């Protein structure tokens, strides 16, 4: 069963098309990464899922039902632009968010105490939000997202602006939710986090879907023709090799994608004696390489068309 089904959704803002004919499904209990460069339409998609903006075309099903206001109670949402009422005390603020989600006051109070305790914020309950450090405010925002025990959690760029301590806290927190069977969707453009956490991904660019599916399967489809190279010397020799489709060069480290049917051993032989090779590894491509390739490809096609 799917926690979220998006069918042929389109959203225009005036002449600008933010999302075009987008469809994807998210299996229940999975951790799903919504990827794309800045301005790809991730936030617009998420806001449509949350019923904050209404699609021009298409349908959105959440937890087996058409998305409507009632469903908001069963979803926890951490927006990319997030903050707290600066003049409200933390306890009152969380109580207000709980009431908006339809929680009874008594129940909300005990849950608030539990979460504040767990995140080491119990002493701050009576302090105003503006008196808290940024990291503490972020923790309060996490609590607000899950206080009503949602079945689906949507996190828009959750790691943006987090320090390493809170990054780890959030990551552990997400895995804990996953173990409880909660479906998690999160959007990001930081690929290494996606590779570590996600089961499934959807890559969108300029409002359109570029790639979707199980992360392991996608990587396998991209085949074993990616080589990671740790080298010393001049990189131009590598670029001269005819069988290369794509290079992502970092100076001392390089990710090379070979064309279909090329043998990695030919490259190794070609390079021997030209540069010093410390490591030569044949592996699946990183998500980053796939991302850059896919997004780059699209953008070139588009600019060519214009």
């Amino acid at each position, binding site marked *: 069963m799917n926690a979220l089904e998006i069918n042929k959704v389109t959203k225009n803002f005036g002449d600008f098309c933010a999302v075009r004919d987008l469809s994807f499904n998210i299996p229940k209990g999975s951790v799903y990464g919504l990827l794309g460069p800045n301005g790809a339409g991730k936030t617009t998609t998420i806001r449509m899922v949350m019923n*904050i903006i209404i699609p021009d075309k298409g349908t959105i099903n959440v937890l087996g039902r058409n998305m409507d206001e009632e469903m908001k109670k069963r979803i926890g949402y951490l927006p990319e632009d997030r903050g707290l009422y600066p003049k409200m005390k933390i306890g009152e603020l969380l109580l207000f968010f709980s009431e908006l989600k339809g929680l009874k006051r008594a129940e909300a109070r005990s849950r608030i105490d539990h979460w504040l305790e767990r995140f080491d914020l119990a002493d701050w309950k009576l302090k105003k939000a503006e008196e808290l450090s940024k990291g503490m405010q972020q923790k309060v925002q996490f609590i607000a997202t899950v206080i009503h025990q949602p079945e689906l959690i949507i996190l828009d760029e959750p790691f943006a602006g987090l320090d390493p301590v809170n990054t780890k806290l959030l990551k552990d927190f997400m895995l804990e939710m996953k173990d409880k069977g909660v479906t998690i969707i999160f959007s990001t453009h930081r690929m290494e986090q996606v590779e570590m956490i996600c089961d499934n991904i959807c890559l969108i660019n300029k409002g359109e879907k570029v790639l979707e599916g199980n992360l392991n399967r996608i990587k396998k489809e991209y085949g074993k023709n990616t080589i990671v190279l740790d080298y010393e010397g001049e990189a131009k020799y590598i670029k001269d090799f005819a069988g290369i489709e794509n290079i992502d060069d970092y100076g001392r480290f390089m990710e090379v994608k070979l064309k279909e049917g090329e043998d990695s051993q030919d490259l190794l032989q070609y390079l021997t004696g030209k540069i010093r090779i410390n490591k030569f590894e044949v592996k699946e491509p990183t998500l980053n390489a796939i991302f850059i390739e896919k997004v780059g490809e699209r953008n070139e096609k588009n600019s060519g068309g214009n």
Partner: protein
Amino acid sequence: MRKILAVIKREYLQIVKTKGFIIGTILGPVLMSLFLIVPILMSVVSVAEQENIGVIDVSGKLFAELDKKMEQKLKDGSRRYLLEEYRVTGDISQLKEALNEKVLAKELSAYLFLPTDISEGGEVEYISENVSDFDKTNNIRTALNSIIIGKRLKAEGLDPTKVGQLMSRVHLSTKKVSKRGVEEDTGGTFIISYFLVLVLYMTLIFYGQAIMRGVIEEKSSRVVEIVLSSIRPFQLMAGKIIGIGAVGLTQYTIWGLFGIGFTTYGGALIADVFPAAASFKIPSIPAYIFIYFVVFFILGYFLFSTLFAAIGSMVNTEKEAQQFMTPVIMMLVIPLLLILFIMRSPNSSISVILSMIPFFTPTLMLLRVCILFPPFIQVGGSIVLMALTTLLMIWLTAKIYRVGLLMYGKRPRIREIIKWMRYK
């Protein structure tokens, strides 16, 4: 509905708990009653002391009469003014010089120079260190006038008492006739109407801006999208407007109770403590005017608060809001400029038309209700018209608000805002 209630409660408590609100609500009536009471007290508590006034009566015929007329008494029954006559024996300017010295030495508080030709228009001189004691100069002027006029009349063979009776002024007493009968009115209607219209104007601006600031705060603190993950933008706007409106009604209720208490017991209290001020009448507001006041406040509040909410959603800072606010504030200020015109001719066709314009109705129709109750069809019509306009504005501004809330960055242009309204 429970969600809107949560928003209403939050907005209400956020303002009611602030020091500004508590101070404003309590201090308002206290200041108001001080403004009423202090002048009364000042007029009752007299600081007068006995004074010596020198008189140079060149003719020598006026002093006795003047001394008789200047018989004002102090509280302890002694004379307030002790007049001393200085006869002209030698040089007048030398005598004046001597009296100047006495004034400076505080032996005399003032002296008068009465020339011989007063009856023919000669000027009386009043010389003192302090020439702004209008009470004293007034007493002197009245006394001299009555003496001199009496002398002139006698010279013509007329009886001053008789002439006084014949010259007595006509009294014009203004009475207001309405369905409830005839009542005496000594300018109370004017003061009350003006006062109510000003209070309405100030509260509409005050609470409108409170809403706008609230919306801007939600945007700038980036809390708004978290809230929207639970409720619709329209519910948020409605909750905010109702919550802050409830603050306004709370404030009015407190002021109203205070007002009722003051008009009921205040007069008696003042009379009790200061018997001399017993004649003072506190103007009271008839109940039907207060009801219309609340009706027009509620209607005006909804009309203007939606506009202020929409402005708040369009901008990122209060400074940016200034430009959009100007036309809205103008719609509140223009009626104030028309107050005197409407008061003079409350039923002229221009007044009727102006008071039917929905944005002017709260102030101008209230004013007309206070002065001269208009035909009910006009009052009812203006209320219906306002209600319809308000619904239209809510529909329009909700569209702007919904989009504006999530728009950060550059302040939008009018063309973009019109585009927002077309979004699904």
